[in-house]
């Protein structure tokens, strides 16, 4: 080929990058995105970005109470990410976490309301609620997977539709459960006797949230990495044909993994209702089902890495809300900042997976 036709930049795949290098790339991307965010903050509010980042830090870690709110929300996001891991590792695009969370949330809230008069002790009620939300989420996740397994129905779009069915169901139940009457909101459930609320653990209000999610995270890590099921999920994700050739029943794996995925997302709904909000609304999932997809994807389905990423994202969210209230801006500024950071981190993967070669560099080994 003549040099004239040589493109300016040539892209080739890397064989693999040292772990420290790949993390360096991600950290550089993160720093770049923070610079862009700083510019945005300056442009919008004319504030010194450094002092803004400082007040962000104070806003999240300033008091014990704020820090626990951060931990609580991080655990919630992590739980959903853990739930999505088996589905995504299988390359099953479960965009339906929002709906699965709501399905679990509705089930938990229903138990809380109808069994919360003291008929059963609190520990038993919590177990019933957890079981109900697991089942509800599992059903919500299983429906699209059955169609996927049987007729190869597009799961991305199917799970997306299931979200809206769940939202409408939530709105359907709210008038039955509303309190006070006519408010069209459920209000705090069992505020008097605190039935179905998480008891404090180790003296911490959100101790139980942490315990449940950490156990789940470690269990899912082991399940995906060391169990036969986890191996099958990995093979199906790499290539369905290979899986079939190896004698794996792809349909069973798809339905089973999606049921597990939905069940854990349903449990996240239980965490939200019993362990945080003590109420239910269409905002119980609050877009976290979508953000968790990004968490799961960036962590490459490694649930332990998800801890880091959800910690970062919730920090940004909480921090941005803190600066927003301090400087009297709208809370939505957090979505802008998070969006920019996610764009950069997503883009940075390219530089980890590919090598750029400029045509003006001397060409050794260009015949590869």
């Amino acid at each position, binding site marked *: 080929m003549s040099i004239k036709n040589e493109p300016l930049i040539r*892209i*080739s*795949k890397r064989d693999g990058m040292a772990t420290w290098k790949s993390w360096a790339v991600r950290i550089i991307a993160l720093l770049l995105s923070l610079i862009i965010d700083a510019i945005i903050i300056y442009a*919008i509010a004319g504030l010194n970005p450094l002092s803004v980042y400082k007040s962000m830090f104070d806003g999240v870690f300033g008091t014990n109470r704020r820090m626990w709110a951060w931990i609580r929300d991080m655990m919630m996001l992590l739980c959903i990410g853990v739930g999505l891991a088996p589905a995504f590792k299988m390359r099953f*695009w479960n*965009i339906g976490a929002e709906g699965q969370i709501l399905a679990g949330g509705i089930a938990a809230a229903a138990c809380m309301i109808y069994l919360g008069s003291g008929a059963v002790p609190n520990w038993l009620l919590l177990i019933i609620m957890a079981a109900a939300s697991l089942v509800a989420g599992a059903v919500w996740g299983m429906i699209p997977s059955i*169609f996927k397994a049987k*007729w*190869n*129905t*597009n799961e*991305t*779009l*199917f799970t*997306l*539709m*299931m*979200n*809206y*069915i769940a939202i*409408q*169901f939530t*709105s*359907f*139940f*709210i*008038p*039955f459960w509303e309190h006070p009457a006519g408010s*069209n909101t459920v209000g705090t459930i069992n505020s008097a006797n605190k039935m179905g609320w998480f008891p404090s653990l180790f003296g911490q209000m959100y101790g139980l949230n942490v315990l449940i999610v950490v156990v789940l995270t470690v269990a899912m890590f082991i399940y995906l990495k060391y169990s036969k099921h986890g191996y099958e999920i990995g093979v199906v994700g790499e290539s369905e044909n290979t899986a079939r050739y190896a004698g794996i029943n792809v349909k069973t794996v798809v339905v089973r993994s999606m049921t597990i995925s939905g069940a854990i997302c349903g449990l996240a709904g239980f965490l939200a209702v019993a362990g945080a909000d003590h109420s239910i609304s269409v905002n119980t999932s609050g*877009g976290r089902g*979508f*953000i968790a*997809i*990004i968490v799961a*994807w*960036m962590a490459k389905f490694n649930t332990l890495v998800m801890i880091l990423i959800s910690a970062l994202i919730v920090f940004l969210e909480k921090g941005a809300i803190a600066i927003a209230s301090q400087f*009297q*801006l*709208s809370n*939505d*500024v*957090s*979505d*802008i*900042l*998070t*969006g*920019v950071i*996610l*764009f950069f981190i*997503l*883009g940075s*993967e*390219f530089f980890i*997976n*590919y090598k750029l070669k400029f045509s003006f560099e001397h060409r050794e080994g260009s015949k590869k």
Partner: protein
Amino acid sequence: MTQFISLFTTAVRFGSVIMFGAMGEVLTEKSGQLNLGVPGIMYLGGICGLIGSFLYELHSPAPSGTVGMIIALVCALAASALGGLVYSFITISLRANQNVTGLTLTIFGSGIANFFGASLNKMAGGVGQISVALTSRAFRWTQPLTDGLGVVDKLLFNYGFMAYLAVALAILLSWVLNRTSVGLNLRAVGENPATADAAGINVTKYKYMATCIGAAISGLGGLYYVMDYINGTWANDGNIEALGWLAVALVIFATWKPARTIWGAYLFGALYWLYNFIPGLNRSSQEIFKMLPYIVTMIVLISVSLRHKREDQPPMSLGLPYFREER
């Protein structure tokens, strides 16, 4: 009869919003790009059109509705195309995952829109609700020629110009996709980019163009919603996001055919608002009725996968990245 007229006109106005969103996404998906950022793009189109005309009405000594309208259109088109460009760069050039990037674009777009929607007034030094009365009136202007036609006028000729623009664009898009060589090439890229590449089609260029133009069209949906559907105001109620997802659903319902988005959009509008016209519904049961568009979409999705009719299938490489050196 008045009930029917009311349902029909509501359905058309509601449908026009999602028709823009869905048409743009059809164009994008025809190139193999599954852009889940449609809600974010509609947000960008809506808010930037609003900001442009708001600043114009605020600062111009004698603002005119027509100028405001042009400014709003230009701002909306530019902002949503820019959103599409960011998405294209990350997914096409940097080869990141399309679904995740699209979702991020939705988060980003809704952040921008709701942030400025909530604080624009304060930043501009005003008080109260943002409103662009003049521009909105220009958007909602209806031609007076057919006023004497009674019911026919009410049903067919009583909408702002963008409702007709939506239909015209859908027909134009349908023609481009099915009757021109550009459309043929575009479909080839979406079906099998490797073959298209081998045939000498510039895959990257087609993907970029389809995504950016598609985004610009989707953004008009947000603009129509803001200027016409809610009369030139802003509310941080998440409606645009819900409509954006409904537009994604409409793409499936229309089985990736722009012409089919026309009646599909009106049908969705009618289904969505049907609960208003059925007597005896309470607050609870009307929510079940609002599920209808989604349930209908699910049924279409299932039947498309069941029947395997070739012309109803999504583009073959939809959602898959294309790297020339990977086979």
